[in-house]
């Protein structure tokens, strides 16, 4: 059974003004779709066609890994965003963030600094650590925490295609605005 592009959990204009409908047209409709299409081309007629996306990510490298991981990363990213997002986390997740970073503002500052410093194309993540805490990690290109046995809680895409139409070279501005969209319910669900 072929992999399919999962539905976007909101309309393409739902994240405006922080992320435009035009960006989502390309980012979801072209980039994410292209990763799905190329993944299917690569697995078609091979034993990988019967594997789950996660199984392929954990067992592959090179072009196949890139396509599979980018399919997974983008689906996860869409769910990290919501037109009703923003604000601050609560409960156990907020406690873990405060324990690690001191405060929510300090966490955001640290996360943004790492995302700005993620040179080239990649992703910045909040992950759950083995001791039940949280940490921030960068990955390059298609690389993803689930390939390293880590549990991702939140991600922000810092490939230029994620923000170039709306923010041009101003990655810090994109990062500043994207906090207005974070779906903390989804992040908390990943944490628990």
């Amino acid at each position, binding site marked *: 059974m072929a992999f399919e592009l999962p539905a976007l959990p909101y309309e393409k204009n739902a994240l405006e003004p922080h992320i435009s409908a035009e960006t989502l047209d390309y980012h979801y409709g072209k980039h994410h779709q292209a990763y799905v299409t190329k993944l299917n081309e690569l697995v078609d007629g091979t034993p990988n066609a019967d594997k789950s996306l996660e199984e392929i990510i954990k067992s592959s490298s090179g*072009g196949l890994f890139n396509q599979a991981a980018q399919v997974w990363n983008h689906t996860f990213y869409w769910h990290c965003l919501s037109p009703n997002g923003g604000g601050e986390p609560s409960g156990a997740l907020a406690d873990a963030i405060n324990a690690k970073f001191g405060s929510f503002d300090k966490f955001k500052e640290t996360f943004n600094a790492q995302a700005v410093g993620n*040179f*080239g194309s990649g992703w910045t993540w909040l992950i759950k650590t083995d001791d039940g805490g949280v940490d921030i990690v960068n990955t*390059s290109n*298609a690389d993803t925490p689930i390939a390293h046995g880590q549990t991702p809680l939140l991600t922000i895409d810092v490939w*230029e*295609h994620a923000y170039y*139409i709306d923010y*041009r*070279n101003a990655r810090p501005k994109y990062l500043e605005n994207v906090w207005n969209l974070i779906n903390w319910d989804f992040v908390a669900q990943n944490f628990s």
Partner: protein
Amino acid sequence: MPHTLPELPYGYDALEPHIDALTMEIHHSRHHQTYVNNLNAALEGTGLEEVPVDELIANLDRVPEAKRQAIINNGGGHSNHSKFWQMMSPTGGGKPQGKVADAIDSELGGFEAFQEAFTKAALGRFGSGWAWLSVTPEKKLVVENTLNQDSPLMHGNTPVLGLDVWEHAYYLKYQNKRPDYVQAFYNVINWDDVERRYQDAVS
């Protein structure tokens, strides 16, 4: 004297319609400028402030380890972009002539085979990076690609033609269609500049 942003050898709109004026302006005045600024910041206090950028990135063992990645990223960015602007021209395109044309024929199987290999290198660079036509230490032409702002100079090759395939190089005009951008690039290649670089590299 700190590194400075070189002037573009033509106007921002000179490469239209293949590369649009807005892309050129942001690419040169913001992206390239940022590499220059960050390079100068990374070099501060290293004693390497006066070393020409190509010499700097070809000799990274001279760079303190704590500064090395920042100098690869930003020194590479400055070096690559400085060359890239010169490697294009509003009167460019067509086919190479002279010694580099002869070498493309004899070492790479001809102009069409070169184009095929170069396009493949540009499209096959996943994420951000560059496609290159370079001269090896044995004075042979090779088509290669590099990640992010890595330069062929870092592994001993001399770039004679380069194509920026970071999304910022083409996203405003071509969006996800990198193949269309790569195809358009062939219309603006400054083969005179490539020939000059080739002759320098093999002499």
